[in-house]
C-alpha cells in the first residue's frame, strides 16, 4: 500500500509537459526577431515528429507575395524551407504541421530583416 501511495504521489507531483501534438519548439529566425542580414532559410523544430506529406512552411513579404523556394523539407521533428534573396522588411512565416499521431497544428509569426 505504501509503495502504491508513493507511486501515485510521484505521478501526481511530477510535472512533464503534456505534448501529444506538434508544437513549435525552436525557430530560425526566432519568432518576432530582427536579423541584421537576410537568412537563406527558415528552419522550425517541433515537439513531435512530423509527417512529410502534410507539413509545410510558407514565407511571405509585407505585400503577401511568396518569398520561399516552394519545397518544404521535413526530417524527423524539423522542417525547413529555402528563401529567395530577401530585402530589408517584415516577413511572415506560416507553418502547418501534421504530427505522426495525426493531429494538425498551425501557426504564424513574423521576423524582420534589417535594423529597424
Amino acid at each position: 500500500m505504501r509503495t502504491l501511495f508513493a507511486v501515485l504521489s510521484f505521478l501526481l507531483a511530477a510535472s512533464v509537459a503534456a505534448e501529444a501534438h506538434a508544437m513549435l519548439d525552436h525557430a530560425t529566425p526566432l519568432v518576432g526577431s530582427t536579423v541584421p542580414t537576410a537568412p537563406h532559410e527558415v528552419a522550425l523544430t517541433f515537439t513531435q515528429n512530423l509527417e512529410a506529406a502534410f507539413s509545410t512552411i510558407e514565407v511571405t513579404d509585407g505585400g503577401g507575395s511568396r518569398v520561399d523556394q516552394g519545397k518544404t523539407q521535413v526530417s524527423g521533428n524539423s522542417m525547413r524551407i529555402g528563401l529567395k534573396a530577401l530585402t530589408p522588411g517584415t516577413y511572415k512565416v506560416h507553418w502547418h504541421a501534421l504530427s505522426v499521431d495525426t493531429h494538425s497544428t498551425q501557426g504564424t509569426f513574423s521576423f524582420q530583416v534589417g535594423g529597424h
Partner: protein
Amino acid sequence: MTDPLVYVRAIHFAATLLAAGAVYFVVLVLPRTEAETISTTRLRKWLAVIAWCSLAVCVVSGAFWLALNARSMSGQPLVELLPQGVIGTVLWQTEFGNAWLIRFAAAVLFAAAMPVLFTPKKPPLWIETATVILATVLTGGLAWAGHAIGASGVESVAHPTADVLHLIAAAAWLGALPLLGLLLGFAARGDVSLAAARIATIRFSMLGTASVATLLVSGIVNTWYLAGSVAALTDTSYGRLLLIKIALFLGMVAVAAVNRLYVTPRLLYDDSAPTAALTLRRNALVETFGGVAILLIIAKLGTMTPANHLGLHAGAVPADAAFVHIHSGEGMADVTINPGHTGVARASVRLWDEDFNPLNAKAMTFGVAPPDAPAKATNRPAAQDADGAWHIDNIELPQQGNWTVTVDITLGSGKHVLLDAPIVIDPAQ
C-alpha cells in the same frame, strides 16, 4: 456538434477489442477436452458469429476512420480523397496509414483462420498461435492511431510499448468479458456443462488478473506522458475525462475483485453453481457497460487537441527576450517581453483557454510592477493583432530584477480573469 470521428473511433475500438477478445477467449479460456468441447459446441457457433460480425465492423469502421483522417490531414472534402490520391498518400506515406495497411492485412489473415478456429475440432497449434498473433497485431496496431507515437528519446519507445500492452490487455479483459458472460448464461441454462464453466471462469480469472495488472502499469506510463501533472489532470477537459476513465476502470476492478474473491468459489459447488453463474454473468454485464463507457471516453480523448493553433515554447522566442507561461484553471497566457533587459521594451501576450484553444477575450490590460514595489505598477490596455496576439509598446523597465506581470482579461462573457507571475528582467547589455 460532436466530431463524427469520435463515434467511428468508439465503434472501431469496440469491434477490434471484441474480435481479438473472441480469439483470446477461444484459445486461452475455453476448455478443449473432448467432453467440454462437445458441451460448448453451440456456444462456439455463437462465438464465431460474434467474431465475424465484430471483424466486419472493425474493417468497415477502420475504412471510415481512414477517410476522416485523410480529410483532416489534407483539408480536402471526402469526395475528393480518392480522385486526388489522398488516400494512397496517407496509406503509403504516413505512419498512421502504414499501421492501417498492416492491420488490414492482419484482419484478412485473421478472417481466413476463423473457420478453423471456431470449430469444435481442435485446430493445429500453429493456427491458434498465428491467430492470437494476428489478433494482437490488429489490436496493438491501434497505438499508431493515437497520442503514443511521435515523441523522441526514451518516450519514443516507452510510450508506444505501454500503449500496445494497454490495448492488448484491454482486448484480453474487456474484449473477452462479454463472451464469458455469454458462456455463463449458457451454463445457467444447462446448455454448457458446469465443469466447462468452472474451467473457463478460473482461466478467465487468471487472464483478467494479468490484464488488470498490465492495464494498471501501462496506464500509469500513458498518464505520465499524456497528463503528467495535477494541473493537467484537473484543469483541462482532457485531464478531467482521463480521471473519469480511471475512476470507471477502478470501479470495474472492484467488481472483478468481488467476482474473484466471493462469487467464483461458489461456482465450485454444484448446489450454488447455477446462482453463482448468473451472478457472474450479471457482474460481467456491469463491467462490460463500464468498459463501453471507457471506450467512448477513449474515442473522445484521441480527438482532443491540447494545442490546435500556435503552440509557442520558450525556445522559439528571441534569446534576449523574457518569457513566462502563466497557467490557471480559467485561462493561460504566454507573455514575451522583448528585449528582456532594462530599457524600453515591447510585450506580446497570447491567451489560451484551458485546452490551449485561443481564449475568447474582448479586452486585455497588461501591467508590470518593478521588484518589491507593486504600488508602482504600470497598467496599460493592450491592442490585439490580426493573428490574435495582444501587444503593448514602449514599456519602460528602468531596473533589473524580478518584475511582476499582470494580465487582466475581459472575456467575451464580461467576466474578468486575472493572471500574474514573476518575470526576470536582466541588466542592459
